[in-house]
Protein backbone atom coordinates (compact mmCIF):
# COMPACT_ATOMS: atom_id res chain seq x y z
CA UNK A 1 0.00 0.00 0.00
CA UNK A 2 2.80 2.38 0.99
CA UNK A 3 4.69 1.86 -2.28
CA UNK A 4 1.57 2.32 -4.37
CA UNK A 5 0.79 5.55 -2.55
CA UNK A 6 4.34 6.81 -2.95
CA UNK A 7 4.11 6.13 -6.67
CA UNK A 8 0.88 8.14 -6.94
CA UNK A 9 2.35 11.05 -4.97
CA UNK A 10 5.57 10.96 -6.94
CA UNK A 11 3.49 11.15 -10.12
CA UNK A 12 1.99 14.37 -8.84
CA UNK A 13 5.30 15.96 -7.77
CA UNK A 14 8.41 14.01 -8.66
CA UNK A 15 10.70 16.58 -7.02
CA UNK A 16 9.31 16.07 -3.50
CA UNK A 17 10.55 13.51 -1.00
CA UNK A 18 7.19 12.35 0.34
CA UNK A 19 8.82 10.05 2.90
CA UNK A 20 10.05 13.06 4.84
CA UNK A 21 7.72 15.90 3.78
CA UNK A 22 5.49 16.69 6.74
CA UNK A 23 3.50 19.70 5.64
CA UNK A 24 2.04 18.87 2.26
CA UNK A 25 -0.99 21.11 2.71
CA UNK A 26 0.25 23.87 5.02
CA UNK A 27 3.47 24.05 3.01
CA UNK A 28 1.36 24.41 -0.15
CA UNK A 29 3.12 21.44 -1.80
CA UNK A 30 -0.27 19.97 -2.71
CA UNK A 31 -2.84 22.46 -4.02
CA UNK A 32 -6.56 21.91 -4.52
CA UNK A 33 -5.97 20.54 -8.03
CA UNK A 34 -3.51 17.98 -6.63
CA UNK A 35 -5.92 16.95 -3.89
CA UNK A 36 -8.75 16.27 -6.35
CA UNK A 37 -6.37 14.26 -8.55
CA UNK A 38 -4.93 12.41 -5.54
CA UNK A 39 -8.36 11.51 -4.14
CA UNK A 40 -9.42 10.21 -7.55
CA UNK A 41 -6.28 8.05 -7.74
CA UNK A 42 -6.77 6.76 -4.18
CA UNK A 43 -10.40 5.81 -4.91
CA UNK A 44 -9.40 3.94 -8.07
CA UNK A 45 -6.25 2.26 -6.77
CA UNK A 46 -7.48 1.20 -3.34
CA UNK A 47 -11.15 0.79 -4.22
CA UNK A 48 -12.35 3.12 -1.50
CA UNK A 49 -14.81 6.01 -1.33
CA UNK A 50 -13.65 9.30 0.13
CA UNK A 51 -16.39 11.77 1.03
CA UNK A 52 -16.24 15.57 1.24
CA UNK A 53 -15.95 15.37 5.03
CA UNK A 54 -12.71 13.50 4.71
CA UNK A 55 -11.20 15.95 2.26
CA UNK A 56 -9.67 17.99 5.04
CA UNK A 57 -6.03 19.09 5.46
CA UNK A 58 -5.40 16.72 8.42
CA UNK A 59 -5.93 13.70 6.16
CA UNK A 60 -3.41 14.84 3.55
CA UNK A 61 -0.69 16.58 5.55
CA UNK A 62 1.87 13.79 5.10
CA UNK A 63 2.38 10.25 3.89
CA UNK A 64 1.36 8.68 7.21
CA UNK A 65 -1.87 10.66 7.39
CA UNK A 66 -2.85 9.60 3.88
CA UNK A 67 -1.96 5.98 4.67
CA UNK A 68 -4.10 6.15 7.81
CA UNK A 69 -7.01 7.46 5.75
CA UNK A 70 -6.66 4.64 3.20
CA UNK A 71 -6.45 2.01 5.94
CA UNK A 72 -9.50 3.42 7.71
CA UNK A 73 -11.53 3.58 4.52
CA UNK A 74 -10.46 0.08 3.40
CA UNK A 75 -11.62 -1.35 6.73
CA UNK A 76 -14.94 0.52 6.50
CA UNK A 77 -15.59 -0.58 2.94
Amino acid at each position, binding site marked *: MRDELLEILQDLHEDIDFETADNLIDGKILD*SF*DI*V*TLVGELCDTFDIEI*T*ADEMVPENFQNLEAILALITRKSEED
Partner: protein
Amino acid sequence: MLFTSYSFMIFVAVTFCLYYVCPKKWQWAILLGASYFFYFMAGRTYLIYILVTTVSTYLAARQMDARKERAEQAYALQKDSLDKEGRKALKAKQKKGITRVFLACLILNIGILAVVKYTNFMIANINGIAKAFGGDGTLSFVDLVLPMGISFYTFQSVAYLIDVYHGKYPAQKHLGKFALFVAFFPQLVQGPISRYNELSESLFALHSFDKQNIAYGLERILWGYFKKMVIADRMLVAVKVLIAEPETYYGSFAFVGMLFYALELYADFTGGIDITIGVAQLFGVKVAENFRRPYFSKNIKEYWKRWHISMGTWFTDYIFYPVSVSKPFRKLNKFAREHFGDHVGKRLPVYLSSFVVWLLTGIWHGASWNFIAWGLGNYVVIMISEELEPLYHRFHKRFHVAGTLPWKLFQVIRTVLIMSCLRMFDCYRDVPLTFQMFGSMFARPNLSALTGEAFLGLGLGVTDYIILAAGALVLFAVSMIQRAGSVRTKIASCSFPVRMVIWWGLFFIVLLFGAYSIGYNESQFIYNQF
Protein backbone atom coordinates in the same frame (compact mmCIF):
# COMPACT_ATOMS: atom_id res chain seq x y z
CA MET B 1 -45.18 38.07 8.74
CA LEU B 2 -41.98 39.89 7.85
CA PHE B 3 -39.11 40.11 10.32
CA THR B 4 -39.55 43.88 10.38
CA SER B 5 -43.29 43.83 11.09
CA TYR B 6 -44.90 44.48 14.46
CA SER B 7 -46.77 41.18 14.15
CA PHE B 8 -43.43 39.34 13.99
CA MET B 9 -42.20 41.08 17.12
CA ILE B 10 -45.41 40.18 18.97
CA PHE B 11 -45.19 36.62 17.66
CA VAL B 12 -41.58 36.27 18.94
CA ALA B 13 -42.53 37.79 22.30
CA VAL B 14 -45.45 35.36 22.80
CA THR B 15 -43.33 32.36 21.73
CA PHE B 16 -40.56 33.54 24.05
CA CYS B 17 -42.92 33.72 27.05
CA LEU B 18 -44.40 30.28 26.36
CA TYR B 19 -40.93 28.84 25.83
CA TYR B 20 -39.66 29.84 29.26
CA VAL B 21 -42.91 29.50 31.20
CA CYS B 22 -43.89 25.99 30.07
CA PRO B 23 -41.98 22.89 31.27
CA LYS B 24 -38.63 22.55 29.53
CA LYS B 25 -39.52 19.19 27.99
CA TRP B 26 -42.08 21.01 25.82
CA GLN B 27 -39.65 23.59 24.48
CA TRP B 28 -39.06 21.78 21.20
CA ALA B 29 -42.84 21.43 20.71
CA ILE B 30 -43.40 25.14 21.35
CA LEU B 31 -40.76 26.05 18.79
CA LEU B 32 -42.24 23.60 16.29
CA GLY B 33 -45.76 24.94 16.83
CA ALA B 34 -44.49 28.50 16.47
CA SER B 35 -42.56 27.60 13.31
CA TYR B 36 -45.61 26.01 11.67
CA PHE B 37 -47.78 28.95 12.71
CA PHE B 38 -45.21 31.35 11.19
CA TYR B 39 -45.15 29.33 7.98
CA PHE B 40 -48.93 28.99 7.89
CA MET B 41 -49.26 32.79 8.17
CA ALA B 42 -46.90 33.18 5.21
CA GLY B 43 -49.07 30.94 3.02
CA ARG B 44 -51.60 28.27 3.92
CA THR B 45 -50.55 25.83 1.20
CA TYR B 46 -46.86 26.19 2.04
CA LEU B 47 -47.31 23.81 4.96
CA ILE B 48 -48.10 20.89 2.66
CA TYR B 49 -44.76 21.28 0.87
CA ILE B 50 -42.68 21.48 4.01
CA LEU B 51 -44.55 18.54 5.53
CA VAL B 52 -43.84 16.39 2.46
CA THR B 53 -40.13 17.23 2.65
CA THR B 54 -40.05 16.65 6.40
CA VAL B 55 -41.87 13.32 6.44
CA SER B 56 -40.17 11.89 3.33
CA THR B 57 -36.68 12.83 4.57
CA TYR B 58 -37.40 11.56 8.07
CA LEU B 59 -38.71 8.22 6.80
CA ALA B 60 -35.91 7.78 4.26
CA ALA B 61 -33.22 8.49 6.85
CA ARG B 62 -34.81 6.10 9.35
CA GLN B 63 -35.16 3.46 6.65
CA MET B 64 -31.50 3.86 5.62
CA ASP B 65 -30.37 3.45 9.23
CA ALA B 66 -32.59 0.40 9.73
CA ARG B 67 -31.25 -1.18 6.55
CA LYS B 68 -27.68 -0.40 7.60
CA GLU B 69 -28.25 -2.09 10.95
CA ARG B 70 -29.76 -5.17 9.32
CA ALA B 71 -26.94 -5.22 6.79
CA GLU B 72 -24.31 -5.08 9.52
CA GLN B 73 -25.92 -7.99 11.37
CA ALA B 74 -26.15 -10.06 8.18
CA TYR B 75 -22.55 -9.22 7.31
CA ALA B 76 -21.31 -10.24 10.75
CA LEU B 77 -23.07 -13.61 10.39
CA GLN B 78 -21.85 -14.32 6.88
CA LYS B 79 -18.40 -12.77 6.64
CA ASP B 80 -16.47 -15.77 7.97
CA SER B 81 -17.93 -18.05 5.31
CA LEU B 82 -17.05 -15.66 2.46
CA ASP B 83 -13.77 -14.84 0.74
CA LYS B 84 -12.67 -11.23 0.12
CA GLU B 85 -14.59 -10.97 -3.15
CA GLY B 86 -17.69 -12.52 -1.63
CA ARG B 87 -17.63 -10.04 1.26
CA LYS B 88 -17.25 -7.19 -1.16
CA ALA B 89 -20.16 -8.45 -3.27
CA LEU B 90 -22.34 -8.77 -0.17
CA LYS B 91 -21.54 -5.22 0.95
CA ALA B 92 -22.22 -3.89 -2.54
CA LYS B 93 -25.59 -5.68 -2.62
CA GLN B 94 -26.51 -4.30 0.79
CA LYS B 95 -25.50 -0.79 -0.21
CA LYS B 96 -27.68 -0.96 -3.31
CA GLY B 97 -30.84 -1.19 -1.20
CA ILE B 98 -29.80 1.77 0.94
CA THR B 99 -28.86 3.79 -2.14
CA ARG B 100 -32.29 3.13 -3.65
CA VAL B 101 -34.03 4.65 -0.63
CA PHE B 102 -31.60 7.57 -0.65
CA LEU B 103 -32.07 8.32 -4.34
CA ALA B 104 -35.87 8.05 -4.17
CA CYS B 105 -36.00 10.67 -1.40
CA LEU B 106 -33.41 12.88 -3.06
CA ILE B 107 -35.25 12.85 -6.39
CA LEU B 108 -38.58 13.55 -4.70
CA ASN B 109 -37.34 16.61 -2.83
CA ILE B 110 -35.11 18.07 -5.54
CA GLY B 111 -37.97 17.27 -7.93
CA ILE B 112 -40.47 19.31 -5.89
CA LEU B 113 -38.04 22.25 -5.78
CA ALA B 114 -37.35 21.97 -9.51
CA VAL B 115 -41.02 21.76 -10.46
CA VAL B 116 -42.30 24.66 -8.35
CA LYS B 117 -39.34 26.90 -9.02
CA TYR B 118 -38.30 26.18 -12.59
CA THR B 119 -41.33 24.92 -14.54
CA ASN B 120 -42.37 28.34 -15.85
CA PHE B 121 -38.77 29.24 -16.63
CA MET B 122 -38.53 26.08 -18.74
CA ILE B 123 -41.84 26.87 -20.46
CA ALA B 124 -40.65 30.41 -21.27
CA ASN B 125 -37.46 29.01 -22.79
CA ILE B 126 -39.30 26.35 -24.78
CA ASN B 127 -41.64 29.05 -26.13
CA GLY B 128 -38.64 31.22 -26.99
CA ILE B 129 -36.90 28.39 -28.85
CA ALA B 130 -40.13 27.44 -30.66
CA LYS B 131 -40.60 31.04 -31.81
CA ALA B 132 -37.00 31.24 -32.99
CA PHE B 133 -37.65 28.24 -35.24
CA GLY B 134 -40.87 29.66 -36.61
CA GLY B 135 -43.25 27.89 -34.24
CA ASP B 136 -46.06 29.36 -32.16
CA GLY B 137 -44.39 29.12 -28.78
CA THR B 138 -47.71 29.35 -27.03
CA LEU B 139 -47.27 26.85 -24.23
CA SER B 140 -49.15 28.35 -21.31
CA PHE B 141 -47.56 29.00 -17.97
CA VAL B 142 -48.55 26.91 -14.99
CA ASP B 143 -49.99 28.52 -11.90
CA LEU B 144 -47.69 27.09 -9.23
CA VAL B 145 -47.20 28.05 -5.61
CA LEU B 146 -43.59 28.82 -4.70
CA PRO B 147 -43.39 28.15 -0.96
CA MET B 148 -41.34 30.68 0.97
CA GLY B 149 -37.83 29.52 1.80
CA ILE B 150 -38.20 26.25 -0.15
CA SER B 151 -34.63 26.47 -1.49
CA PHE B 152 -33.29 26.83 2.05
CA TYR B 153 -35.21 24.06 3.78
CA THR B 154 -34.83 21.67 0.83
CA PHE B 155 -31.05 22.13 0.81
CA GLN B 156 -30.93 21.72 4.57
CA SER B 157 -32.93 18.48 4.38
CA VAL B 158 -30.90 17.15 1.46
CA ALA B 159 -27.65 17.78 3.38
CA TYR B 160 -29.09 15.78 6.30
CA LEU B 161 -30.14 12.97 3.96
CA ILE B 162 -26.67 12.79 2.36
CA ASP B 163 -24.93 12.85 5.74
CA VAL B 164 -27.07 10.02 7.10
CA TYR B 165 -26.48 8.08 3.87
CA HIS B 166 -22.71 8.44 4.36
CA GLY B 167 -23.06 7.47 8.04
CA LYS B 168 -21.83 10.81 9.33
CA TYR B 169 -24.43 10.66 12.12
CA PRO B 170 -27.47 8.50 12.89
CA ALA B 171 -30.95 9.49 11.73
CA GLN B 172 -33.10 11.50 14.16
CA LYS B 173 -35.66 9.11 15.65
CA HIS B 174 -38.10 11.76 16.87
CA LEU B 175 -40.29 13.01 14.02
CA GLY B 176 -41.28 16.18 15.89
CA LYS B 177 -37.68 17.15 16.58
CA PHE B 178 -36.69 16.46 13.00
CA ALA B 179 -39.63 18.58 11.83
CA LEU B 180 -38.32 21.40 14.01
CA PHE B 181 -34.87 21.11 12.43
CA VAL B 182 -36.43 21.57 8.97
CA ALA B 183 -38.87 24.33 9.90
CA PHE B 184 -37.14 26.32 12.70
CA PHE B 185 -38.76 29.69 11.98
CA PRO B 186 -35.89 32.19 12.43
CA GLN B 187 -33.92 30.57 9.62
CA LEU B 188 -36.83 29.45 7.45
CA VAL B 189 -37.02 32.65 5.44
CA GLN B 190 -33.48 33.32 4.32
CA GLY B 191 -31.25 30.72 5.90
CA PRO B 192 -28.55 30.09 6.86
CA ILE B 193 -28.61 26.53 5.54
CA SER B 194 -27.77 24.87 8.85
CA ARG B 195 -26.16 21.46 9.20
CA TYR B 196 -27.98 18.99 11.40
CA ASN B 197 -24.88 18.07 13.43
CA GLU B 198 -24.21 21.75 14.16
CA LEU B 199 -27.74 22.92 14.94
CA SER B 200 -29.41 19.92 16.59
CA GLU B 201 -27.54 19.99 19.91
CA SER B 202 -28.67 23.46 20.95
CA LEU B 203 -32.02 23.15 19.14
CA PHE B 204 -33.13 20.10 21.13
CA ALA B 205 -31.43 20.95 24.43
CA LEU B 206 -33.46 22.09 27.44
CA HIS B 207 -32.83 25.77 28.02
CA SER B 208 -33.08 27.81 31.19
CA PHE B 209 -33.70 31.53 31.17
CA ASP B 210 -30.18 32.90 30.60
CA LYS B 211 -30.06 36.67 31.01
CA GLN B 212 -26.70 37.08 29.29
CA ASN B 213 -27.73 34.99 26.28
CA ILE B 214 -31.02 36.84 25.94
CA ALA B 215 -29.29 40.22 26.18
CA TYR B 216 -26.87 39.11 23.44
CA GLY B 217 -29.80 37.94 21.34
CA LEU B 218 -31.65 41.24 21.73
CA GLU B 219 -28.50 43.20 20.86
CA ARG B 220 -28.06 41.15 17.72
CA ILE B 221 -31.70 41.64 16.71
CA LEU B 222 -31.42 45.37 17.24
CA TRP B 223 -28.24 45.47 15.16
CA GLY B 224 -30.06 43.58 12.41
CA TYR B 225 -32.95 46.05 12.48
CA PHE B 226 -30.48 48.92 12.28
CA LYS B 227 -28.88 47.46 9.15
CA LYS B 228 -32.18 46.56 7.53
CA MET B 229 -34.39 49.52 8.44
CA VAL B 230 -31.97 52.40 8.72
CA ILE B 231 -29.63 51.49 5.84
CA ALA B 232 -31.02 48.82 3.48
CA ASP B 233 -34.62 50.02 3.24
CA ARG B 234 -33.48 53.64 2.82
CA MET B 235 -30.95 52.73 0.13
CA LEU B 236 -33.60 50.63 -1.61
CA VAL B 237 -35.57 53.80 -2.48
CA ALA B 238 -32.70 55.19 -4.59
CA VAL B 239 -31.73 51.80 -6.02
CA LYS B 240 -35.30 51.26 -7.26
CA VAL B 241 -35.30 54.59 -9.12
CA LEU B 242 -31.87 53.95 -10.65
CA ILE B 243 -32.90 50.52 -11.90
CA ALA B 244 -36.33 51.51 -13.12
CA GLU B 245 -35.04 54.26 -15.42
CA PRO B 246 -31.90 52.95 -17.12
CA GLU B 247 -32.36 55.36 -20.06
CA THR B 248 -31.99 58.28 -17.62
CA TYR B 249 -29.57 56.77 -15.13
CA TYR B 250 -26.75 55.31 -17.23
CA GLY B 251 -22.96 55.81 -17.19
CA SER B 252 -21.77 57.27 -13.91
CA PHE B 253 -25.24 56.71 -12.42
CA ALA B 254 -25.00 53.02 -13.26
CA PHE B 255 -21.76 53.02 -11.27
CA VAL B 256 -23.45 54.83 -8.38
CA GLY B 257 -26.36 52.37 -8.53
CA MET B 258 -23.92 49.48 -8.45
CA LEU B 259 -22.31 50.78 -5.25
CA PHE B 260 -25.67 51.67 -3.69
CA TYR B 261 -26.89 48.14 -4.36
CA ALA B 262 -23.71 46.69 -2.83
CA LEU B 263 -24.46 48.57 0.38
CA GLU B 264 -28.18 47.76 0.28
CA LEU B 265 -27.67 44.02 -0.28
CA TYR B 266 -25.01 43.81 2.42
CA ALA B 267 -27.16 45.62 4.99
CA ASP B 268 -30.28 43.71 3.95
CA PHE B 269 -28.87 40.18 3.94
CA THR B 270 -26.48 40.46 6.89
CA GLY B 271 -29.16 42.39 8.80
CA GLY B 272 -31.64 39.58 8.17
CA ILE B 273 -29.14 36.99 9.36
CA ASP B 274 -28.40 39.10 12.45
CA ILE B 275 -32.12 39.00 13.28
CA THR B 276 -32.18 35.23 12.63
CA ILE B 277 -29.19 34.57 14.88
CA GLY B 278 -30.50 36.96 17.52
CA VAL B 279 -34.00 35.46 17.63
CA ALA B 280 -32.55 31.93 17.79
CA GLN B 281 -30.32 33.06 20.64
CA LEU B 282 -33.37 34.23 22.60
CA PHE B 283 -34.34 30.55 22.69
CA GLY B 284 -30.79 29.43 23.48
CA VAL B 285 -30.32 28.05 19.95
CA LYS B 286 -26.97 28.59 18.28
CA VAL B 287 -27.28 29.26 14.55
CA ALA B 288 -24.00 29.31 12.62
CA GLU B 289 -22.62 32.63 11.37
CA ASN B 290 -23.23 33.23 7.67
CA PHE B 291 -20.85 36.16 7.11
CA ARG B 292 -17.32 37.08 8.16
CA ARG B 293 -16.78 40.67 7.01
CA PRO B 294 -16.96 39.70 3.30
CA TYR B 295 -16.12 43.17 1.98
CA PHE B 296 -12.69 42.90 3.61
CA SER B 297 -11.76 39.95 1.36
CA LYS B 298 -8.55 40.07 -0.65
CA ASN B 299 -10.02 38.27 -3.65
CA ILE B 300 -13.23 36.71 -4.97
CA LYS B 301 -12.31 33.23 -3.82
CA GLU B 302 -11.89 34.50 -0.27
CA TYR B 303 -15.05 36.60 -0.60
CA TRP B 304 -17.06 33.46 -1.27
CA LYS B 305 -15.69 31.87 1.88
CA ARG B 306 -16.94 34.86 3.86
CA TRP B 307 -20.27 35.72 2.19
CA HIS B 308 -23.32 33.45 2.58
CA ILE B 309 -20.95 30.88 4.08
CA SER B 310 -23.59 28.19 4.58
CA MET B 311 -24.51 28.21 0.89
CA GLY B 312 -20.87 28.16 -0.24
CA THR B 313 -19.96 25.23 1.99
CA TRP B 314 -23.14 23.40 0.93
CA PHE B 315 -22.17 23.60 -2.73
CA THR B 316 -18.55 22.70 -1.94
CA ASP B 317 -19.41 19.66 0.19
CA TYR B 318 -22.41 18.30 -1.68
CA ILE B 319 -21.69 19.26 -5.30
CA PHE B 320 -18.06 20.26 -5.88
CA TYR B 321 -16.25 17.42 -4.08
CA PRO B 322 -18.62 14.59 -5.06
CA VAL B 323 -18.63 15.71 -8.70
CA SER B 324 -14.89 16.34 -8.97
CA VAL B 325 -13.99 12.89 -7.60
CA SER B 326 -16.88 11.02 -9.24
CA LYS B 327 -16.02 8.13 -11.58
CA PRO B 328 -16.59 10.03 -14.86
CA PHE B 329 -14.48 12.95 -13.62
CA ARG B 330 -11.74 10.59 -12.43
CA LYS B 331 -11.67 9.09 -15.90
CA LEU B 332 -11.58 12.56 -17.42
CA ASN B 333 -8.70 13.50 -15.12
CA LYS B 334 -6.68 10.47 -16.25
CA PHE B 335 -7.53 10.98 -19.90
CA ALA B 336 -6.63 14.67 -19.81
CA ARG B 337 -3.37 14.06 -17.93
CA GLU B 338 -2.33 11.42 -20.46
CA HIS B 339 -3.24 13.49 -23.50
CA PHE B 340 -2.71 17.11 -22.46
CA GLY B 341 -0.16 16.87 -19.67
CA ASP B 342 -0.38 17.36 -15.93
CA HIS B 343 -1.19 21.07 -15.93
CA VAL B 344 -4.36 20.74 -18.01
CA GLY B 345 -5.20 17.27 -16.72
CA LYS B 346 -5.36 18.31 -13.10
CA ARG B 347 -7.29 21.48 -13.84
CA LEU B 348 -9.91 20.20 -16.25
CA PRO B 349 -12.05 18.19 -13.77
CA VAL B 350 -11.76 20.93 -11.15
CA TYR B 351 -12.78 23.66 -13.59
CA LEU B 352 -15.65 21.56 -14.91
CA SER B 353 -16.88 20.80 -11.38
CA SER B 354 -16.62 24.51 -10.55
CA PHE B 355 -18.64 25.26 -13.66
CA VAL B 356 -21.37 22.91 -12.43
CA VAL B 357 -21.26 24.51 -8.98
CA TRP B 358 -21.57 28.08 -10.28
CA LEU B 359 -24.24 27.17 -12.78
CA LEU B 360 -26.28 25.60 -9.97
CA THR B 361 -25.52 28.49 -7.61
CA GLY B 362 -26.94 30.86 -10.22
CA ILE B 363 -30.01 28.71 -10.82
CA TRP B 364 -30.53 28.31 -7.06
CA HIS B 365 -30.79 32.08 -6.70
CA GLY B 366 -33.62 32.34 -9.20
CA ALA B 367 -35.27 30.88 -12.27
CA SER B 368 -34.02 33.40 -14.81
CA TRP B 369 -31.10 33.95 -17.12
CA ASN B 370 -29.73 36.91 -15.19
CA PHE B 371 -28.98 34.66 -12.21
CA ILE B 372 -27.36 32.07 -14.46
CA ALA B 373 -25.24 34.83 -16.04
CA TRP B 374 -24.36 36.07 -12.54
CA GLY B 375 -23.28 32.57 -11.44
CA LEU B 376 -21.19 32.01 -14.55
CA GLY B 377 -19.73 35.51 -14.21
CA ASN B 378 -18.41 34.53 -10.79
CA TYR B 379 -17.03 31.33 -12.31
CA VAL B 380 -15.19 33.19 -15.06
CA VAL B 381 -13.64 35.68 -12.61
CA ILE B 382 -12.46 32.89 -10.26
CA MET B 383 -11.03 30.83 -13.13
CA ILE B 384 -9.20 33.83 -14.57
CA SER B 385 -7.69 34.72 -11.20
CA GLU B 386 -6.66 31.06 -10.74
CA GLU B 387 -4.92 31.04 -14.13
CA LEU B 388 -3.25 34.38 -13.45
CA GLU B 389 -1.67 33.02 -10.26
CA PRO B 390 1.83 32.58 -11.81
CA LEU B 391 1.64 36.16 -13.06
CA TYR B 392 0.81 37.40 -9.54
CA HIS B 393 3.80 35.49 -8.19
CA ARG B 394 6.11 37.12 -10.74
CA PHE B 395 4.62 40.53 -9.96
CA HIS B 396 5.18 40.09 -6.23
CA LYS B 397 8.71 38.84 -6.79
CA ARG B 398 9.47 42.00 -8.74
CA PHE B 399 7.51 44.50 -6.63
CA HIS B 400 7.52 44.05 -2.87
CA VAL B 401 4.06 45.45 -2.19
CA ALA B 402 2.34 42.39 -0.72
CA GLY B 403 1.27 42.96 2.87
CA THR B 404 1.55 46.75 2.66
CA LEU B 405 -1.49 48.84 3.57
CA PRO B 406 -1.94 50.39 0.09
CA TRP B 407 -1.84 46.91 -1.49
CA LYS B 408 -4.34 45.52 1.02
CA LEU B 409 -6.61 48.48 0.31
CA PHE B 410 -6.26 47.92 -3.41
CA GLN B 411 -7.24 44.24 -2.95
CA VAL B 412 -10.30 45.09 -0.87
CA ILE B 413 -11.50 47.79 -3.28
CA ARG B 414 -10.90 45.46 -6.22
CA THR B 415 -13.01 42.73 -4.59
CA VAL B 416 -15.87 45.12 -3.79
CA LEU B 417 -15.85 46.52 -7.34
CA ILE B 418 -15.73 43.13 -9.07
CA MET B 419 -18.53 41.73 -6.88
CA SER B 420 -20.61 44.86 -7.39
CA CYS B 421 -20.15 44.65 -11.18
CA LEU B 422 -21.33 41.04 -11.15
CA ARG B 423 -24.35 41.97 -9.05
CA MET B 424 -25.57 44.23 -11.83
CA PHE B 425 -27.09 41.03 -13.28
CA ASP B 426 -29.11 40.77 -10.09
CA CYS B 427 -29.97 44.48 -10.14
CA TYR B 428 -31.29 44.89 -13.66
CA ARG B 429 -32.61 41.32 -13.96
CA ASP B 430 -32.02 41.48 -17.72
CA VAL B 431 -28.78 40.17 -19.25
CA PRO B 432 -28.54 42.43 -22.37
CA LEU B 433 -29.53 45.50 -20.32
CA THR B 434 -26.87 44.65 -17.71
CA PHE B 435 -24.19 44.54 -20.40
CA GLN B 436 -25.49 47.84 -21.84
CA MET B 437 -25.38 49.54 -18.45
CA PHE B 438 -21.96 48.12 -17.68
CA GLY B 439 -20.71 49.36 -21.06
CA SER B 440 -22.26 52.77 -20.49
CA MET B 441 -20.00 53.32 -17.46
CA PHE B 442 -17.08 53.49 -19.89
CA ALA B 443 -18.66 54.54 -23.19
CA ARG B 444 -21.07 57.21 -21.88
CA PRO B 445 -19.88 58.11 -18.36
CA ASN B 446 -21.93 61.34 -18.36
CA LEU B 447 -20.07 62.61 -15.28
CA SER B 448 -21.63 66.07 -15.51
CA ALA B 449 -25.01 64.54 -14.62
CA LEU B 450 -23.76 63.63 -11.14
CA THR B 451 -25.11 66.75 -9.48
CA GLY B 452 -26.57 67.19 -6.04
CA GLU B 453 -29.90 67.90 -7.65
CA ALA B 454 -29.80 64.60 -9.56
CA PHE B 455 -29.09 62.71 -6.34
CA LEU B 456 -32.06 64.40 -4.72
CA GLY B 457 -34.14 63.16 -7.64
CA LEU B 458 -33.62 59.58 -6.52
CA GLY B 459 -36.28 59.79 -3.85
CA LEU B 460 -33.96 60.58 -0.95
CA GLY B 461 -33.38 63.88 0.81
CA VAL B 462 -30.17 65.38 2.19
CA THR B 463 -30.93 63.94 5.65
CA ASP B 464 -31.31 60.49 4.13
CA TYR B 465 -27.87 60.71 2.49
CA ILE B 466 -26.36 61.89 5.77
CA ILE B 467 -28.00 58.97 7.62
CA LEU B 468 -26.76 56.55 4.96
CA ALA B 469 -23.21 57.87 5.09
CA ALA B 470 -23.21 57.73 8.89
CA GLY B 471 -24.74 54.23 8.79
CA ALA B 472 -22.10 53.00 6.35
CA LEU B 473 -19.40 54.46 8.60
CA VAL B 474 -20.86 52.66 11.61
CA LEU B 475 -20.90 49.38 9.65
CA PHE B 476 -17.27 49.93 8.69
CA ALA B 477 -16.24 50.82 12.25
CA VAL B 478 -18.00 47.77 13.72
CA SER B 479 -16.32 45.53 11.12
CA MET B 480 -12.95 46.98 12.07
CA ILE B 481 -13.62 46.38 15.78
CA GLN B 482 -14.79 42.81 15.01
CA ARG B 483 -11.35 42.01 13.63
CA ALA B 484 -10.03 42.18 17.18
CA GLY B 485 -12.87 40.10 18.67
CA SER B 486 -16.58 40.04 19.41
CA VAL B 487 -18.21 43.47 19.67
CA ARG B 488 -20.90 42.09 21.97
CA THR B 489 -18.29 40.79 24.42
CA LYS B 490 -16.70 44.23 24.39
CA ILE B 491 -20.08 45.87 25.08
CA ALA B 492 -20.75 43.35 27.87
CA SER B 493 -17.48 44.36 29.54
CA CYS B 494 -18.56 48.03 29.63
CA SER B 495 -20.12 49.55 32.73
CA PHE B 496 -23.91 49.40 33.11
CA PRO B 497 -24.56 53.07 32.16
CA VAL B 498 -22.44 52.74 29.01
CA ARG B 499 -24.29 49.58 28.01
CA MET B 500 -27.61 51.35 28.56
CA VAL B 501 -26.50 54.26 26.36
CA ILE B 502 -25.45 51.86 23.57
CA TRP B 503 -28.63 49.75 23.71
CA TRP B 504 -31.10 52.59 24.03
CA GLY B 505 -29.11 54.65 21.56
CA LEU B 506 -29.37 51.92 18.94
CA PHE B 507 -33.03 51.37 19.77
CA PHE B 508 -33.90 55.05 19.29
CA ILE B 509 -31.79 55.27 16.12
CA VAL B 510 -33.84 52.41 14.63
CA LEU B 511 -37.04 54.00 15.87
CA LEU B 512 -36.22 57.49 14.64
CA PHE B 513 -34.21 56.82 11.51
CA GLY B 514 -35.75 53.57 10.27
CA ALA B 515 -37.07 54.07 6.74
CA TYR B 516 -40.76 54.20 7.67
CA SER B 517 -41.78 57.43 6.07
CA ILE B 518 -40.44 57.14 2.52
CA GLY B 519 -43.10 54.97 0.97
CA TYR B 520 -42.60 52.44 3.74
CA ASN B 521 -44.34 49.14 3.24
CA GLU B 522 -42.25 46.76 5.34
CA SER B 523 -40.05 45.84 2.43
CA GLN B 524 -39.21 42.19 2.08
CA PHE B 525 -35.68 40.89 2.56
CA ILE B 526 -33.95 40.35 -0.77
CA TYR B 527 -33.05 36.74 0.08
CA ASN B 528 -36.67 35.83 0.91
CA GLN B 529 -37.31 35.24 -2.75
CA PHE B 530 -34.66 32.52 -3.01
